[in-house]
């Protein structure tokens, strides 16, 4: 099958798949970030049980393989009478796993803050919350732009889990669509190449955005 034949027959499907990958990635990234922040707050709060819980959460989701996580969501949860749609299972896995890494990045971002910065904030009479809002969070975020960029790419790669559950053709993302085409026609190398190019382009785009932001906000020391 030639490239033009492949694209004329499946072009729309690829476009739809690309948009689905983008949508899933964006959605899961935002979710991962939100949960990552909450978990990080738990991990640094002075209440010991919450710290332990936050650490536990991170270790579980940082270390569980995506496939194992998805299988538990798809097959084990229904036996506990918790029903999620297939798409929802993919989203939950692609939120929770990156959220653990997000929290790890935030923790190491905070660890780069020089202790003197915190002392200076205290000495000036800033309250704890002012110190967190004006000094700790801005500095932590600025030094985590590049890890957070990799996290966005990682989230995109995680959304390929969607190819492992049955979805309608219009829900397929870039990995699932290749499967779909291969099961119908001999897509061969080309069918893979198209998806791979779209994935890599997206990753490069994310990387470029991240590098641009990083140049603007990086803290000189």
């Amino acid at each position: 099958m030639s490239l033009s034949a492949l694209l004329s027959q499946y072009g729309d499907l690829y476009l739809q798949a690309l948009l689905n990958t983008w949508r899933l990635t964006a959605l899961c990234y935002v979710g991962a970030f939100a949960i990552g922040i909450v978990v990080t707050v738990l991990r640094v709060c002075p209440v010991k049980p919450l710290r332990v819980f936050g650490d536990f959460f991170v270790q579980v989701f940082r270390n569980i393989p995506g496939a194992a996580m998805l299988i538990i969501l798809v097959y084990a949860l229904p036996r506990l009478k918790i029903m999620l749609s297939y798409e929802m299972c993919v989203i939950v896995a692609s939120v929770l796993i990156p959220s653990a890494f997000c929290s790890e990045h935030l923790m190491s971002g905070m660890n780069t803050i020089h202790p003197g910065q915190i002392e200076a904030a205290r000495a000036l009479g800033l309250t704890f919350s002012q110190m967190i809002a004006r000094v700790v969070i801005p500095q932590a975020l600025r030094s985590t732009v590049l890890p957070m960029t990799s996290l966005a790419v990682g989230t995109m790669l995680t959304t390929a889990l969607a190819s492992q559950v049955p979805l309608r053709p219009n829900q397929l993302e870039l990995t699932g669509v290749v499967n779909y085409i291969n099961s119908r026609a001999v897509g061969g190398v080309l069918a893979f190449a198209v998806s791979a190019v779209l994935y890599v382009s997206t990753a490069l785009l994310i990387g470029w955005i991240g590098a641009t932001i990083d140049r603007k906000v990086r803290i000189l020391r």
Partner: protein
Amino acid sequence: MNAPSIRDRLYEPPGPKTRRRIAVFTVIALLGLGFLLYLVVRQFERQGQLQPRYWDFFLKWSTWRYLGAGLLSTLKAALTAAVIAIGAGFLLMRGKLNKNPVVRWVSVALIEFTRGVPTLLLIYFFFLVVPRMGVSLGAFWRITLPCAISASGIIAEAFRAGVNAVPRGQTEAALSLGLSNLRTFYQVVFPQAIRFVIPSLISELVIVLKDTTFAYVVSYADLMQNAKVLITSHDSLVSVYLVVAVIYILINYGLNKLSDRMARGGARTAAER
């Protein structure tokens, strides 16, 4: 877990009021977390998942031998993939630092490719396309090769970071002593770089190990596959998958800990110099 330092640097030694407040919140948090745990256990209980028949076969030696065999296959695939990925990653790093622009560009393209494409896509490629090209691979290689390719780009970057971490003066000193470029790299720079690289290589092993869980796509009998057999023979899905997930988590946790410890040790020796 990261160094706990920031947690403590954020707070001042608590005064009496803060201490009281922390105590109150600790109690509330314990109650809340206890309630959460109760809800989980109750859900298991209500759905009958705590019945002994779902759990008692974990007391049998044969169950663990079977899971152990699967784990061994998983580790075999992961280690093979890691070794291949380290070799390929090293070549890609050498390529990226090569003077020849063509070599450099090809290496950069390959690195970006492997880093931007999901392992699953590569697995499907080896599963669906490679056999049609007349190359017949066993299940072992169908899972090992894509996992290796997928990790090679990240490993190349890890190598490059390690090489860049070696002070430039080391190269200059070696060259000024009349060592050739190659000798300078292999006898002076790389031996120093490897120390920075080893921790990240260990954490790459975690990524490879996770990727091998897709082995079911190519019907390779890894830990997950053996778990599936256990599930059918004991009709016990929830308990088996949970136990298997815990096994993966513990192994990866151990590897990450080892990597952290080596990174700290490496940083210390570097600082001592």
